[in-house]
């Protein structure tokens, strides 16, 4: 549905933003403004879904397990300027695009097998 006018408005991604995929364990550094102060909040977890491809409204969902085994999912806009940095800590071998099955699992059952010997 993209036409030339809309394509010209496509937001730009910062150069050091890595290519992420489902199963990646990532650390999202988000800038949070509190009054006049600005600080960085880190959200670390597994990418469970990518939505919207590369479109301007695309987003990704990160799931982390907080204290007492409570799952927390946050969805970030792919081109969000408030995300200062995104690090990939680990890549996992997964066989589906959306890892929503992790919602029903916890502890050992929620582990993902690491993808090793990656081509750099």
């Amino acid at each position, binding site marked *: 549905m993209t*036409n030339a*006018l*809309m394509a010209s*408005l496509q937001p730009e991604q910062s150069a050091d933003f890595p290519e992420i995929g489902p199963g990646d364990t990532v650390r999202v550094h988000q800038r949070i403004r509190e009054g006049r102060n600005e600080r960085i909040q880190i959200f670390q977890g597994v990418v469970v879904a990518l939505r919207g491809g590369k479109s301007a*409204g695309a987003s990704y969902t990160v799931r982390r397990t907080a204290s007492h085994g409570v799952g927390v999912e946050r969805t970030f806009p792919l081109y969000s*300027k408030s995300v200062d940095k995104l690090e990939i800590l680990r890549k996992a071998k997964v066989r589906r695009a959306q890892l929503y099955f992790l919602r029903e699992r916890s502890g050992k059952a929620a582990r993902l097998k690491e993808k090793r010997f990656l081509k750099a």
Partner: protein
Amino acid sequence: MRGILGKKVGMMQLYDESGAVVPVTIIDAGPCYVTQVKTLDTDGYNAVQIGYDEVPERKLTKGERGHLSKATAPTLRELRELRYKNAPTYGLGDVIKADIFKEGDIVDVEGTSKGRGFQGGVKRHGFAGGPKTHGQSDRHRAVGSRGAGTTPGHTWPGARAPGHMGNERVTVQNLKVALVDAERNLIAVRGAIPGSRNGLVLVRDAVKKPPKQA
């Protein structure tokens, strides 16, 4: 009353300076040409007629071509009139581009809503329909009562009923202009506007929140 004709391109998401996501509709706006200027003296009221959408000459009638050549405007398909309180300052053949608006302006957008065909009362007017259970059959989406009985003995004219829905003029008021680029004939407004993609729309100053000096 500033106004410009355009085509709806589609919706997308943009980011504002603070990084917040803004839902916008992209409009391919103008260029429009002033095809006729009406004043109190000549026509009894003040207005500007603007034209949009260049088409091959063969698509227009001789009358239309004559009218446009008088304004030294290209062959245009769509003509609309904008009323003015005072005598308009535009001249014949003036070009109106997207830069008549700027970011932050409040505008109304007028268009033709998508046609829905013949629709029942539930979809068209928000009727509740009938009960889903308790032995009901064929009453789930019925319109119910059409009014009182022997008195008045007929259905009131204008009573809401099933019928044709959509494909009518709809105005969405008080939309904020998110982005303007006259070079690319682009206007982006915050929120949704009526009609399908490629539908003709009129973007004009908001009636209820007019600009400071107009």
